[in-house]
């Protein structure tokens, strides 16, 4: 049977089509202002890749901040539940998930089935979310995707004195004016965000193994900074940004199994 998961986030929309244990197709697009349209677009593209039509999907679960607006989903699950399911499916030993998205950050503790035991969530303060890096990359005139690569040249990472995105932006502009090396500034930004995430992980009393999900996990500088901040290696998973959509597809499979 074929299942789908659709994760409509604040910045990107993701869709995954699965057949039992196998991912048939997946897609990530930038989300527009209307979640319904983003959902439709990303699902159409994924169906096309898989050479399928919507009629072939036995069940589709929607998740993410726009999940209530998805026109074609059969049911919904919270993104926290989906990230738990997805990560344990990708790497069965994972018990803690750090998910840093465009507008929020979460630390999730799960059991061996990927059921959520405990979680912490920040969407109140932009610092600590992917938006922090986005704004800083903008201020530095650097593409978000290049941050990880550039951070590798750091020799003496800066220590930011401000946590607030607004104040930190001013601070890094002064650091640039003072002639500080951009690589050191970027490494300092990664460290700041990683420390913020690590304190959330500390609060849920994390168990090994730890996985990192969400778009920010694709930034190698952030990945290493978080390993340093946590003091443990992080388990690399194959599709960190698709993790929520994969979890949704797994919930879709469970839903059809329960009905039949």
């Amino acid at each position, binding site marked *: 049977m074929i299942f789908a998961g659709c994760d409509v986030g604040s910045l990107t929309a993701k869709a995954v089509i699965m057949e039992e244990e196998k991912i048939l197709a997946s897609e990530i697009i930038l989300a527009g202002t209307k979640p319904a349209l983003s959902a439709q677009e990303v699902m159409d593209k994924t169906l096309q890749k898989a050479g399928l039509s919507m009629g072939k999907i036995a069940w589709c679960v929607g998740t993410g901040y726009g999940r209530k607006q998805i026109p074609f989903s059969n049911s919904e699950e919270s993104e926290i539940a989906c990230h738990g399911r997805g990560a344990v499916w990708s790497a069965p030993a994972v018990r803690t998930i750090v998910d840093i998205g465009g*507008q929020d950050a979460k630390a999730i503790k799960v059991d061996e089935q990927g059921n959520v035991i405990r979680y912490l969530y920040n969407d*109140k*303060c*932009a610092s600590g979310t992917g938006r922090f890096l986005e704004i800083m990359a903008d201020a530095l005139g650097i593409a978000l995707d290049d941050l990880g690569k550039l951070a590798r040249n750091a020799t003496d990472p800066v220590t930011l004195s401000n946590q607030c*995105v*607004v*104040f930190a932006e001013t601070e890094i502009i*002064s650091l640039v004016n003072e002639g500080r090396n951009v690589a050191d500034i970027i490494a300092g930004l990664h460290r700041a965000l990683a420390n913020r995430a690590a304190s959330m992980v500390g609060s849920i009393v994390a168990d090994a193994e730890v996985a990192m999900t969400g778009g920010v996990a694709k930034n190698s500088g952030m990945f290493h900074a978080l390993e340093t901040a946590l003091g443990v290696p992080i388990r690399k998973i194959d599709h960190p940004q698709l993790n929520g959509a994969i979890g949704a597809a797994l919930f879709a499979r469970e839903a059809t199994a329960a009905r039949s």
Partner: protein
Amino acid sequence: MITAGCDVGSLTSKAIIMNDNRIVAQELIRSQIKPAESAVAVMECALQKAGLTIQDINFCVGTGYGRDKIPFVQEAVSEITCHAMGARWLLPTVKTVIDIGGQDCKAMRIDKDGKIVKFITNDKCASGTGRFLEVMARIIGVSLDDLGGLSARAKAPITMANACTVWAQADVIQHLNDGIAAEDIGAGINNAMASRMAVLANNIGLERDLCMTGGVAKNVGVVAALEKLLGMTIKRIKKVDPQLVGAVGAALIAADKCERSAAS
């Protein structure tokens, strides 16, 4: 005896020159990148207005975030102490001072001598500081000076869903796109600022009389909203620009130091 106070803040720099406890000149400029340069520039303007040179100043006290970089002061004093002294001198019945500056906000309770009894400050989060208003004014396309006046003209002020300056920016853009009137958005912004300050101020237990200092004290929308939230009248400082209160306090402390050193 001629004394001076120089308050180098994150956004503006202020100088006050006093002659025997009477203000003879005052100046306010936008801060430059280097605090030392801002201090020299604002003091030169004030001296010129007073027809004096720096050699005529018997004692000068520096304050504000750049106070340790001011080249010409005899002493640096924290802005909390200076705001308390300035407010006490301008309004002798004041027991609580709320100061909202460009990058921080403070609430302090003071005794009859202007000494600090209790205080609380936020300089960690831009929300609740002047920077919040600055960012929001830019988005709705009004000058910071005109933002306060919008409250009085608002018919249905918006409620801001997010405290974070970054998220609130997106909310305000959404409201603008939805065609909400600038007055209603501006009033919502002023109300959000006031409620953030009220939460902080209530922590120290307010005592009458209450006054407000710093640049945001000139925003009538915030002041009115804050009065409503605190259930207390905010006494207006009329003798000088409320933004200059820290510099006034510094000049008063300078006079006190000068007298003490003359006596000893």
